[in-house]
């Protein structure tokens, strides 16, 4: 029996980043959903309920911090693990303040990305 693939939602306004992360995660047997801006993401999360959300902190249109805060406020999605990504100096601090569960600095190592996602995808719910 084929186990359902874990759904990873990747939110970043840079197409290159989305593409390369997708390649890495698909290779690790994840189903990857992508979104390129924060605002429209919330209804999408409600609908698709991903297992892990990877989100960049600084996107045009809305700061990722805000989206993370919103996610963590809503009962239906608040326990989805959120990994914040950023190329900002103070990214880790901001991630913590926004309520993210973990942080990935850019530029990142693809192995580091993969293991982080795997860690949160194989969560207690499984």
């Amino acid at each position: 029996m084929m186990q359902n693939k874990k759904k990873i939602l990747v939110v970043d306004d840079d197409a290159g980043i989305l593409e390369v992360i997708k390649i890495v995660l698909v290779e690790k047997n994840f189903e990857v959903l992508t979104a390129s801006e924060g605002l429209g993401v919330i209804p999408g999360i409600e609908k698709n309920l991903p297992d892990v959300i990877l989100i960049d902190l600084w996107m045009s249109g809305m700061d990722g911090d805000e989206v993370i805060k919103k996610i963590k406020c809503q009962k239906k999605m608040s326990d989805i693990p959120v990994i914040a990504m950023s190329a900002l100096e103070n990214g880790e601090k901001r991630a913590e303040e926004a309520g993210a569960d973990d942080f990935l600095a850019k530029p990142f190592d693809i192995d580091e990305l993969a293991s982080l996602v795997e860690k949160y995808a194989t969560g207690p719910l499984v």
Partner: protein
Amino acid sequence: MRNGWSDNVIQNIYGDEIGDLATRRLAQRLNAQYAIANTLSQHENHRDTLTKVLQVIGETLEWEGGALWLIDENTKKLICGQVWQANPGKNKSFLHATQNISFGFGEGLPGRVWATRRPQWVVDVTKAPFFLRAKEAVENGLHGAFAFPLLSGRKVLGVIDFASHEVRPPDKDLLNMVGAAGQQIGQYLAHVKTVEEQDSLLKQLKQERHRVEQAAIESEQRASELDAVFAALGDSLVVYDAKGAAVSANPAAIKMLGFNPVGLENHGLADKASIRHRRGEKIAFAELPSALALQGQKMVSKYIVIKNFAGRDVMMTCSAAPIRRREKIVGAVMLLHDVSESWSVEKQKDDFVAIASHELRTPISTVKAFTQILERHLSRSADEASKKYIGKIGTQLDRLAALVDELLEVSRIGTGKLELNKEMFDLEDLVRETVEDFQRTVDTHTVIVKGGLQREIFADRDRIGQVLLNLLSNAVKYSPEAEKVVVSVKEGVGNVTVEVKDFGIGISRKNQAKIFDRFFRVSGKTNGRFPGLGLGLHISSEIIKRHEGELRVKSTPGKGTTFSFSLPFKYDAK
């Protein structure tokens, strides 16, 4: 030549003709008296008056020449003040003698008269042994003379004497007359003196008053100018008295604060407006620029944060200076200048750098990830060449990422935003760790560690490690022909010195002065071999500076270079 003995008709003051000699002489005397009184009553300057007096005496009494003698206060002698001659141009030597001689008390004819306070007649001066100008008198044919004192009360103010070509028998009436005249002239002189003094005093007083008036006007002008400046100034200005109570505030200050600080004592304004350090910490009372100015510090300027009328925090520069009156400090002036605009610009600049580095890191991130993916793919194939090339791309990417980091660092340092996390740590341990990590990436050189440190130091461990790494990589980079790099840790008095020594190409004296500058790179044929932004040493130097130390260099071109820095064991946490 007019001759007293001639029979020329003499007219009396009424113009009538006089007949015999006695009557004539009486008429003369009366004329003279009248003329003297008349002259003295004219309101001319006293020089002219006195000359005229001599003239009228001489003319009415028909004498050849006369002189006015005044007492010189300095020498206490009689000197000639005025002369009169019936025939100017004649009696030259006598005139000259008269003008150049001086008589002490009792000396000569005038001196005698000064002493006796009585008029004196000399029948023939050429025969008078006391007459000091006898020689000249002989030369000029002068014989008869008389002199009388100029008295004010009992005080002799001067003497007048006259001479004639004739030998004249004593004329008692004449002497009496001139005696009386002497009183008149004396009074006049006394009066003149007083008036002169008064005049001079008056003049001085007038000048003084004028000066004071001028000063008052200027002071008023300046005051109104200052008032205008005070009122119009866009910056907030507060004036304190010597005790730190605010005594005056300009409209801009009241507007900015939302209240009038006048009356607040003991620098109470700082409390009420919540004046803080730039980073938000409370300012100690003694650190307030206004307090420092009252202590005498000439010009204090600090960045502060203050709550304005709307309760908003505003960044300002706070400057203060003492007010002195005759060396004593009587107050202070404090100026507040809003810099929040420029701080927001700085913030923007900050944001620019943050944005720029973010934007740069994003494609770097993507390329790095793809490179790694490629590497994984290629690792399964036998395509050695491709693997090698991918490896090189990866290395360059890491360099690129490091450069972006450096840029951000340098920009932080430039805007003073480099934050250090100081802690107590084992330096010897950090050195060994850093050298070990570094040695793993370098096989061309051996890094030797000498010395050590037993105690811990207080510094930012990561940053010091960063400096060490920078120096190590420079050492290797600039000594391609050498085989070793020596790191030494030496304990000094109250500090520790770390040295990194290489045996490479060295640095010329000229360049030694510049290597810690931003973006400085060695030019010339080494350019292609040592590319880079040239920021490493600058950043390292700044980090050490922030630790109260200094990054130093000693080098001999062709022999090698030693970089060294000292860190104090402990100092106040800043």
